[in-house]
């Protein structure tokens, strides 16, 4: 069993949690969630939904949206007034302000389900925090329905539930419990389930903190012809295999997706897990796409000033060798022939390899990083300072790749110099030889195109068993220094897997909105100009909007993701750390 937080387990295992009520079985509270049937295509359970507005990131986004000049037209749009009119009406008649209304309605528990059928139908079950509120809202809905053009609605009582039908909406209320559906029969069955449920057993405990859990029944979804067509293997788009193949494969292999969103501490935690019932045989995942046993994605590169970093494991050699399985025999044959033809053509430039040869040498470790960098040209300062990017690809045989690529780089440099006037120079950084491609900086060249292109001075090297390429020499050097520091660490001293579960991490990412806020300083001119010329803001509004964006990003903390296989399936985790 993998370890999951207590709250996650309580939310997901609806049938497994112990009832924690007091009193006799007949007096036991029946949570509206019991109205949801066991078989659903999708089910979402949320506790303390009202608390979502207190999540710091949500609060920051909401503050930004309400003050933003960009979003102001949305609030002022009369269509938005419709929702506001409804809300004002409710507030006035219920004598509750907005926050209180939201807390009483959404502070309890909500469940939403999509039930199998043709077409699939929805069911919502709500436990309001205030037991009287649903009844009061029902009275107001009756009043509004009487005043509407239709003027009529159906009313009945069924098994102690007060029932209504307003057009296509069917509604049933009892105390704090609200059931809604677009189908009367679904609603009737939901009431029966709720009233007949054994309240002494297996009622999910109400969580006292904000949580959302969802489950998608993939096995049931795969019965649909449309879904089967979408998950056809091999897919029609070959590119999808290399980029998405492993992800598509998850939807084919696993029977369930469980998603949970919670705030266990100072993090906002989103977990997406692909699982199957215990004992079900599942393939280990598309071979070559994910890190195999004993391997992991490399640690993230984190030199100073990183906005974004990612690392992943992808074995293109294995993917190439399994091409017949991946894309079918006929396509595999075409691709093999195309590869051979391309290899023959590349010999003209002195390249003694085919594309598949090169592809097989690349990886399986891939890393990228976006970071602040110093201006790459001494004599041209671009009006906007863009961050630099660096990519690092491990090589199976560095010397072979260097031999292969030398003539290719020579020809490329010649072409770039002849066509674009790009100048190639060499520079050493420790024992690494860097090739630096510089743009021409003569006045005639400057007046064509954007000056922002002088943020780029492409630099690459084959060194330390890797191909490293970046947009500025300084960024590449910073990454090489990090690689050296990494190499100097004792074995096993690199970043460990997520400590909360024994994952074989195959993808990692880290994003720092705070660093992005810093980066906005560098592009303030372009951003301000866009806000004025594209969005139509005034110059003053544009300046304030830029400041607001910086404040927003500065308050958003850090986001990290990890994906990989555990004993029970595949997990994708997003962690949003408060600043």
């Amino acid at each position, binding site marked *: 069993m993998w370890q999951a937080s207590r709250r996650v387990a309580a939310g997901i295992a609806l049938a497994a949690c112990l009832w924690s009520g007091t009193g006799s079985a007949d007096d036991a509270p029946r949570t509206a969630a019991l109205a949801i049937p066991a078989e659903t295509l999708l089910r979402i359970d949320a506790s303390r939904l009202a608390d979502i507005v207190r999540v710091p990131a949500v609060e920051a986004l909401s503050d930004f949206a309400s003050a933003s000049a960009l979003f102001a037209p949305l609030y002022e749009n009369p269509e938005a007034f*419709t929702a506001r009119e409804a809300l004002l009406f409710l507030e006035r008649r219920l004598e509750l302000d907005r926050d209180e209304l939201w807390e009483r309605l959404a502070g309890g528990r909500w469940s939403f389900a999509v039930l199998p059928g043709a077409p699939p139908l929805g069911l919502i079950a709500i436990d309001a925090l205030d037991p009287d509120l649903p009844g009061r809202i029902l009275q107001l809905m009756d009043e509004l329905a009487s005043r509407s053009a239709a003027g009529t609605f159906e009313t009945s009582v069924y098994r102690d539930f007060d029932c209504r039908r307003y057009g296509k909406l069917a509604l049933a209320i009892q105390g704090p419990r609200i059931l809604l559906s677009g189908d009367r029969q679904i609603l009737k069955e939901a009431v029966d389930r709720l009233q007949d449920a054994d309240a002494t057993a297996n009622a999910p405990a109400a969580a006292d903190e904000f949580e959302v859990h969802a489950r998608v029944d993939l096995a049931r979804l795969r019965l649909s012809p449309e879904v089967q067509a979408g998950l056809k293997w091999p897919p029609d788009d070959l590119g999808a295999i290399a980029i998405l193949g492993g992800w598509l494969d998850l939807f084919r292999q696993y029977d369930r997706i469980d998603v949970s969103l919670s705030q266990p501490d100072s993090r906002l935690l989103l977990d997406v897990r692909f699982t199957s019932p215990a004992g079900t045989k599942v393939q280990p995942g598309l071979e070559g796409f994910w890190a195999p046993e004993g391997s992991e994605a490399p640690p993230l590169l984190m030199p100073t000033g990183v906005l974004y970093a990612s690392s992943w494991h992808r074995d293109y050699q294995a993917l190439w060798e399994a091409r017949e399985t991946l894309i079918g025999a006929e396509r595999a044959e075409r691709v093999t022939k195309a590869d051979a033809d391309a290899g023959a053509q590349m010999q003209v430039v002195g390249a003694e390899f085919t594309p598949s040869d090169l592809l097989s040498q690349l990886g399986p470790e891939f890393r990228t990083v976006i970071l602040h960098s110093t201006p790459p040209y001494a004599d041209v300062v671009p009006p906007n300072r863009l961050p630099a990017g660096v990519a690092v690809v491990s090589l199976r045989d560095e010397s072979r790749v260097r031999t292969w690529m030398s003539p290719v780089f020579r020809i490329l440099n010649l072409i770039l110099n002849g066509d674009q006037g790009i100048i190639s120079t060499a520079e050493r950084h420790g024992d690494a030889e860097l090739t630096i491609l510089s743009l021409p900086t003569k006045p005639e060249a400057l007046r064509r195109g954007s000056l*922002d292109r002088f943020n780029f001075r492409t630099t690459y090297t084959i060194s330390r068993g890797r191909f490293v390429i970046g947009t500025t020499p300084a960024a590449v050097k910073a990454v090489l220094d990090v690689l050296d520091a990494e190499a100097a660490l004792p074995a096993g001293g690199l970043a460990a897997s997520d400590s909360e579960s024994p994952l074989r991490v195959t993808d990692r990412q880290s994003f720092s909105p705070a660093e992005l806020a810093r980066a906005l300083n560098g592009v303030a001119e372009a951003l301000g100009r866009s806000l004025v010329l594209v969005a139509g803001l005034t110059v003053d509004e544009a300046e304030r909007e830029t400041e607001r964006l910086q404040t927003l990003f500065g308050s958003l903390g850090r986001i990290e993701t990890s994906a990989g296989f555990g004993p029970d399936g595949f997990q994708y985790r997003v962690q949003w750390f408060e600043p």
Partner: protein
Amino acid sequence: MSSAQQRLNAISPRTAWEPFTPTRRSRWDELKAAHLLRRAAFGASGPDVARAVQAGLEETLDQLFAPGSGSAAFDADADRLEEGAVASGDARQLEAAWMHRLLNSPFPLRERLTLFWHDHFATSQAKVDNLALMRDQVATLRRDALGNFPEMLHAMTRDPAMLIWLDSNTNRKGAANENYAREVFELFSLGLGNYSEQDIREAARALTGWSVRDARAHFDPAQHDDSEKTVFEQRGRFTSGDIVRLCLGRPACAMFLVRKLFQELVSDAGQPSEELLAPLAEGFRQRDFDIAWLVRRMLGSWLFYSDAAIQQRVKSPVELIVGTVKALEGRVGPVQAAASSAELGQRLYFPPSVKGWDGGRLWLNSSTLMRRQNLAFEVTRGIGESARCDPARLVREQGLRTADDMAGFFLRLFHQTADHPQRARIVEQLEVEAAAGPQHPFAQPARTARLARAAAHLALTLPEYQLG
């Protein structure tokens, strides 16, 4: 003879240019105030028109001819936007930066005239291929837009963008290129028939020696033909400055310029006689070609407020777009506005030829007319790029509820009359619109908004809205 020509012919040259003074029969009212603001400032909102009526003609003219409050700060910001646009290397950014001025400048008359001079000294980025030079040329035109024409003409003979555009760059001693000389005479100062081919040949020699180096005009004496030339029967070792002086000394020059400004500001529906324009031309010449004097004389005259001038011009794409946005008291993204203007045939910085835009009725063809109608729909949708230009906001501010009220409001706003012959038909269509859609109590604001947008749209699609 067209009715427009008949009206023009009926105007007495003795009184045409006398200052308009309101009488009981011819009041200073919304119709005239809106007409002035359309011609001088591309258009105006309802409150702007009301203020102009309240202030009277003279005070309104004073305000139009003076930089508005915040002009210096606005110009500084606009200059920075243009600088960034030039650095981006993207012509559309520069077009948008100018559109930003056209939409928002506190000195709209100056922008109006800048656009006119850009058409007059038509120079296209398509050939110049240098955003900085194009920006600088328009900046020069803006500086002199309401100033002194001789200074402007001198500046244009040495403007780097103009030198490239009219091949002055290759106008050398012993190999004169007549392009620029011809256009100076024909299009910039005298008009057809007021010079000879010999004058052109001789003037071309006088204009030799100029080229563009490092984005600056450069005079190379070695490339200049400094021998004697005969232009307009006058002999001398003329240079470019002399050619300008000689042009300005021709009686045809003042008349040519007055006629062009007449078509731009007064009417392009008929041909004014020389007799009609003579008083203006004489005054213009006597005042050393003072543009502000000429423009003010035109905009303050009896003729300007007669039926020979009101609604006697087809709105250019820029006038149509900017005027509509101003009337709706809205804001749109200048990038989109500039793109729309280009689609309608007026792409800023890209006049189609050295003659500029043909203008007048030629703004309208089956394609552009349809596009103008579509634009009316797009700008009144109230969502997306038109979200800040929503007619529903005006209706809400006015507290209007019924279809009839809304129809009357927008007819008055766009046509200065609520008693338009099409009002009943518009109301009928709006009532059909009102009956459709959700009818629940909370839908009222959305319903009202839909009606407001439909009312504005219908008012904008009336044919006379294409006339300014």
